[in-house]
């Protein structure tokens, strides 16, 4: 084999090894998902929140504040008393969102849905707050049925119910346990617990057609009280204790 041919073969081998070795390090090479995860988990200097990161306590407070300061929301709430029901993260699509699989961060504003309850007529107000732009994007009146029941509602209903003489008599010596549970509804690990469901009606003579009503359930250990059936009209603060056919 001539020296020239040997040199050529050495060059060829070197070119092959170098090409294969360099290819994974080329800038064309995409990062693996694991590598991107690593890059994402590295905190940025300002620890900027991603669009789907859970709302922070400060954001919840800000969302309520922005909503309450908004003219449309104030008008919808009216002059009467109102109560905050919930503040939840919203993942809304930005306008002109066209890139099918973006590899770079997409500007998606962080939004929160804020719900209020109007005590005067049991209707509510829904506000969509743009936390990024610190503005209220939309506000609308919602019906009583769309104002969800809260743990506070159940606690309030339980408090009224446990003041009822007939119910006290029915519960007997368990009253003390249920009274303690009424201060923390839904606590599952306690021996006694009280939970509740919203009651609706369409009957003209039923107070729950217009009022905010809660059906209460009493749990002792793992078992639920069968009778009596207890429900509370929160609007009128009236307790109903009934025995039903099983």
């Amino acid at each position, binding site marked *: 084999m001539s020296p*020239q041919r040997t*040199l*050529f073969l050495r*060059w060829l081998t070197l*070119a*092959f090894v*170098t*090409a294969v070795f*360099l*290819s994974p390090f*080329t800038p*064309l*090479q*995409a*990062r*693996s*998902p*694991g590598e*991107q995860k690593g890059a*994402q*988990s590295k905190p940025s200097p300002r620890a900027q929140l*991603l*669009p*789907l*990161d859970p709302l922070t306590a400060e954001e919840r407070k800000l969302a309520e504040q922005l909503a309450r300061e908004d003219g449309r929301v104030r008008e919808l709430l009216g002059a009467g008393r109102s109560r905050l029901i*919930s503040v*939840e*993260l919203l*993942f*809304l*699509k930005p306008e002109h*969102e*066209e890139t*099918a*699989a*973006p*590899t770079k*961060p*997409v500007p998606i504003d962080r939004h929160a849905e804020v719900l209020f309850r109007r005590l005067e007529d049991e209707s509510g107000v829904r506000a*969509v707050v743009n936390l990024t732009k610190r503005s209220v994007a*939309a506000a609308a009146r919602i019906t009583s*049925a769309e104002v*969800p*029941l*809260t*743990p506070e509602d159940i606690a309030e209903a339980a408090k009224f119910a446990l003041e009822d003489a007939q119910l006290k008599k029915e519960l007997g010596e368990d009253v003390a346990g249920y009274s303690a549970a009424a201060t923390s509804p*839904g606590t599952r690990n306690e021996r006694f617990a009280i*939970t509740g*469901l*919203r*009651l*609706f009606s369409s009957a003209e003579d039923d107070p729950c057609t217009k009022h905010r009503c809660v*059906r209460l*359930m009493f749990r002792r250990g793992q*078992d*639920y*009280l*069968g009778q*009596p059936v207890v429900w509370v009209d929160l609007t009128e603060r009236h307790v109903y204790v009934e025995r039903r056919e*099983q």
Partner: protein
Amino acid sequence: MNRRQFLLSLGLFFALFSLSTAAWCQAAPPWMPCSGVNLIDQQFPVSGPEETHWRLCMEAAPKNGLMIHWAFFRKSPHAPWIRIFWDARVSDIFVPYHSGSPRYYDMSSFTFQMTPIGAADCPASVGGTPLGGKVCKEVRDRGLAWKDDARVRRGQELVLWGALDAANYNYVIEWTFRDDGVVMGRVGATAVNLPGVPYEAHMHNPIWRLDIDFNGASSDSVEFGTHTETGATANDTDPLITQEGSREWNPHAFNSLDVSDANLVNSHGHRSHLQLIPLPTGGLSRHQESFTQKDFWVTAYNGSEMWAAQLPVYTTPPQNVSNADIVVWYKGSIHHHPRDEDGEYVGNYWRGEALVMWTGFMLKPHDLFDRTPLYP
């Protein structure tokens, strides 16, 4: 080495460089708007060279429970990532009792919290990993993918589930992402029958809202897959749904909602579809409320339209849903006819738990792959 040999080896270098780069290079993974336990990245098979891949965000929240956002699928290591969902959730669970009252909206009327999820719910021995204390991630064998005599391939799946503490009830909300690109959504009802009337029959109707952004938000269309038998022959048609509205599922017609994107075809030039196929358990209910009168709904995307009971309002007047940003809805049903297996009275207290009852749907790729997936 003469000039000719030098140029030849240089050319060979660049050729080899390009070839090996192409071999190594994969489409860059999509940027994700979530982090920590909410970011899910799962390749299949779980070990060995990748064949397919899912990448998505989840959110575990009060009221709607476990939701999926920004989900992408890659059908092969060198294929582009394809967006499937912007948002997938159970919009509401409507629960009418047979006596006419109560009629609960178990999501929109409450702010139910998710239950804790621990090692007992989600044991490592079945591929489980509790995420954030409220969600279980299971990566597991799903049985046969295909079989041809002695040749066989088993499949795998990623399952995410969490449960809403709906007072006496628990609702299990489950999302499955399979290695063959199939997505399944299920809701399971379990725990304690309604105290006071534990023997009263009732229905749990979960309504899913699926904001499918197939290959991106725009340019999506929906066809209504329909099978018709005429004498000894049969015919399958897919009429385009041009305006917002509803459709009824007929089991004899094998109806499905078939979502496609104007710009997405496979290597055969066939337009890719995702077929929404009901997986009912027993049947699909009808009630006096108008939104329950149909099984499928198609709406144009509107970020404020989230609640199923408003569907008749959302679709009036009907907007265009052809070549648009669309949302599809499906209502399933769980008919709960109480039985002694649910529990019993012990004195004045009800003791026992109703075993999990399921209903759901499947979102199945049709002409998305170029060939049989999971095939050597």
